[in-house]
């Protein structure tokens, strides 16, 4: 018998209890995933007890993944590559046959059953299996591959479960530290260069995929561990390097008057700085900048991605924190938004009472509708070419729940409530200065060639129609009555695919303003 088959056979014989547990969990997972609409969007629903939550099967994917990691650790560590006392290293094992036997084990015991379950889920959800086979294969290169590669690397660099747990702990600490550093930097999402965006995951993936091969061939444990650690550190450092100039290249400057969204900064009222009574220990002060937005064309949406404020000081010096993330959706109609920007407390305290000139830059993108269509909502489920199979959530009033293979679609949705008697609820209010009778739904376009990571090929998602807070008349007093869009069977919704029209940057000026008038204060 070929050596790798012999080792494989031995591993199956040795690890049959773990194999049975993993297959039982997979069966349980399949049982729960086969139930349609299992994760309803229960907005405002009461919290479920942990016991019921466990019963609902939501923990099963976690335990399933855990059982796979455990199985991979056990099978690889049964011929551990760490140390010099193992019995097998002085036997005629050929390293690549040993490696192949472990990969074969993962393929046959974990991957093949999972793939069959995925085919079943696809079929059961009502999507064609053959037509989706290619993308189902591609899907294996997302979460399953990442999971197997990570577990395999962990198993090949550790001697036993205790060491593996320690390894996981170290990886978790590194990830938390990287996230903490990243959040502290406040960099705008996507401000790294495309090259770096590709390089970071490639560096991490290549190291955790290739180092175990080297470890199998040469059993140089510490060298392998150091190589992976170095790759992780390098990727973390790369992710922390800001590439502000790249933002300015990606978002070319547009004259404010040519912008598809017109911004007006209302007069900033003077405020006396007052203490909330609680000591503020943060090192930053958050500025809040109100803006009124109008002019977005019907059939478009403009998104704010990032913001940069430059402050002119009296001595001709400037201060800026650079580009930071700021996400807002701008729809047709007149709306009020608040833009937030953090400034170092030390800087703020120095100049808060002085009248300063603020130069505000916004990085924006404009999307327009493509392939727009009108859908009359039925009382039961319906199919849509883009959204998949959907149904109206009757409890939430503003949500469509949909299922689609492999990935969340990008969409623009609009619902004009006043046209449908069932679609608007009138409510009285003494304080709300808004109308809520038009609701919009939005999801960005994703990379359509590659499936989203996951175990289940069917993604379940909500198309959430958020009523837009439009300001009816900026000068008039607040209305005492307003209406709010509510979806109902028979209502017509407008759906379209979003197409990126352009990215651009605009600059707004806010002269002679005191920073203390812009400070966002917590309401007690």
């Amino acid at each position, binding site marked *: *018998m070929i050596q790798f088959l*012999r080792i494989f056979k031995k591993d199956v014989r040795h690890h049959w209890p773990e194999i049975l547990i993993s297959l039982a969990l997979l069966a349980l997972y399949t049982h729960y995933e086969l139930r349609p609409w299992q994760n309803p969007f229960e907005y405002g629903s009461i919290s479920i007890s942990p016991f019921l939550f466990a019963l609902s099967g939501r923990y099963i994917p976690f335990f399933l993944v855990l059982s796979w990691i455990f199985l991979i650790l056990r099978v690889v560590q049964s011929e551990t590559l760490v140390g010099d006392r193992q*019995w097998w*290293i002085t*036997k*005629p094992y*050929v*390293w690549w046959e040993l490696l192949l036997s472990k990969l074969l084990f993962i393929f046959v015991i974990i991957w093949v059953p999972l793939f069959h379950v995925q085919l079943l889920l696809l079929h059961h959800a009502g999507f064609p299996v053959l037509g989706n086979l290619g993308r189902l294969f591609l899907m294996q290169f997302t979460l399953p591959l990442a999971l197997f590669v990570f577990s395999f690397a962990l198993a090949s660099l550790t001697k036993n479960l205790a060491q593996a747990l320690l390894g996981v702990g170290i990886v978790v600490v590194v990830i938390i530290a990287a996230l903490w550093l990243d959040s502290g930097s406040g960099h705008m999402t996507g401000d790294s260069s495309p090259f770096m965006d590709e390089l970071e995951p490639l560096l991490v993936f290549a190291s955790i995929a290739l180092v175990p091969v080297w470890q199998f061939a040469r059993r140089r444990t510490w060298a392998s561990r150091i190589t992976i650690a170095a790759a992780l550190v390098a990727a973390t450092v790369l992710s922390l390097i800001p590439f502000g100039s790249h933002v300015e290249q990606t978002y070319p400057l547009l004259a404010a008057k040519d912008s598809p969204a017109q911004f007006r900064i209302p007069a900033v009222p003077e405020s006396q700085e007052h203490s909330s009574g609680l000591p503020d220990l943060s090192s930053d002060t958050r500025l809040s900048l109100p803006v009124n937005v109008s002019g977005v064309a019907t059939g478009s949406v403009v998104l704010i991605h990032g913001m940069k404020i430059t402050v002119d000081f009296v001595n001709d010096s400037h201060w800026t924190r650079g580009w930071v993330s700021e996400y807002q959706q701008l729809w047709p109609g007149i709306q009020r938004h608040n833009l937030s920007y953090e400034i170092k407390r030390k800087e703020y305290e120095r100049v808060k009472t002085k009248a300063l000139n603020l130069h505000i830059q916004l990085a924006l993108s404009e999307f327009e509708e493509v392939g727009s269509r009108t859908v009359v909502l039925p009382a039961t489920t319906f199919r849509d070419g883009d959204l998949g199979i959907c149904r109206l959530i009757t409890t939430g009033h503003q949500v469509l729940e949909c299922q689609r293979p492999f990935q969340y679609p990008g969409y623009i949705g609009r619902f004009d409530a006043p046209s449908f008697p069932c679609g608007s609820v009138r409510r009285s209010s003494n304080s709300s200065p808004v109308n809520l009778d038009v609701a919009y739904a939005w999801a960005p376009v994703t990379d359509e060639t590659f499936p989203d990571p996951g175990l289940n090929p069917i993604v379940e998602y909500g198309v959430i129609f958020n009523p837009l807070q439009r300001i009816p008349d900026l000068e008039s007093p607040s209305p005492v009555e307003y209406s709010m869009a509510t979806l109902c069977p028979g209502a017509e919704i407008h759906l379209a695919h979003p197409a990126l029209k352009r990215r651009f940057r605009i600059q707004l000026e806010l002269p002679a303003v005191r920073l203390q008038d812009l400070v966002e204060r917590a309401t007690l």
Partner: protein
Amino acid sequence: MPQAIHTEQLTKRFGRITAVDCVSLDVPEGALYAFVGQNGAGKTTTIKVLMNLIAATQGSAMVLGTDSRNIRGKSYTQIGYVSENQEIPEWMRVGSLLEYLRDFYPTWDSALEQSLVKQFDLPLGRKIKALSRGMKMKLALASALTFHPRLIVLDEPFGGLDPLVRDQLIESLLERAAESTVFISSHDLAEIESFSSHVGYLESGKLLFSEEMSSLATRFREVEIITDHALPHLPSPLPSSWLRPKSSGALVRFIDSRFEEQDTRTNIERLFPNAKDIQFRALSLRAIFLAMARKSEEA
């Protein structure tokens, strides 16, 4: 004579500690080489370097004509390695382990396997974790002998075994010695003295000597001199090959590590002109090593 093992200036350091210090040795093919030294002398480390289980810091080693850094995988179809520290898959049964190993070796001898199973009284149906230490060593040795290896490397194989098991292992080893080179490490001199053809002595990582057992036995002699009156002190300087010289009244005793009867006698007559009786006695391996070890400690 071709060498089964050949090392040159082999060195292994762990941080500041030098476990193996410039060891150069030759093990001729067909030899039954006893690699001896106290616990912690560096025997196991040397063997691990030879077997490519750990990397040398300096120097080189050839095992069966192959650079030790390339000893892996298929090389072990010619090398049978047994160590007291090896982690055998204890979840397996004795029979299934032998069955599993059978296909790894093109030269596996099923008849010999059966014979060794019978000779060692191995319980084929029992799980390895339920075996005694002696039984585990028997199983390890059986699995290392059954494919007729050209080189058998045994690292402290007899430690903690009862005499009966030890004799059984030695007996089976000697039965195979004609077709293999045996390299056996031990700190227990008595157990290997009787059957080794060559011996190497390691002390604090340094190889103090490596030679044929017969020449070693000839080279070392305990010398006893009786003089006609008590000596107040030993004459100085004494030859460097005289180890642990002691005098007590009219009696002088030392171990000559380069014994040639005529030369030794001439030296004695020069240094002890009033010697009236000179006795030469052969030494056991144990006595030789103790003398070497004490000399090294004194140094």
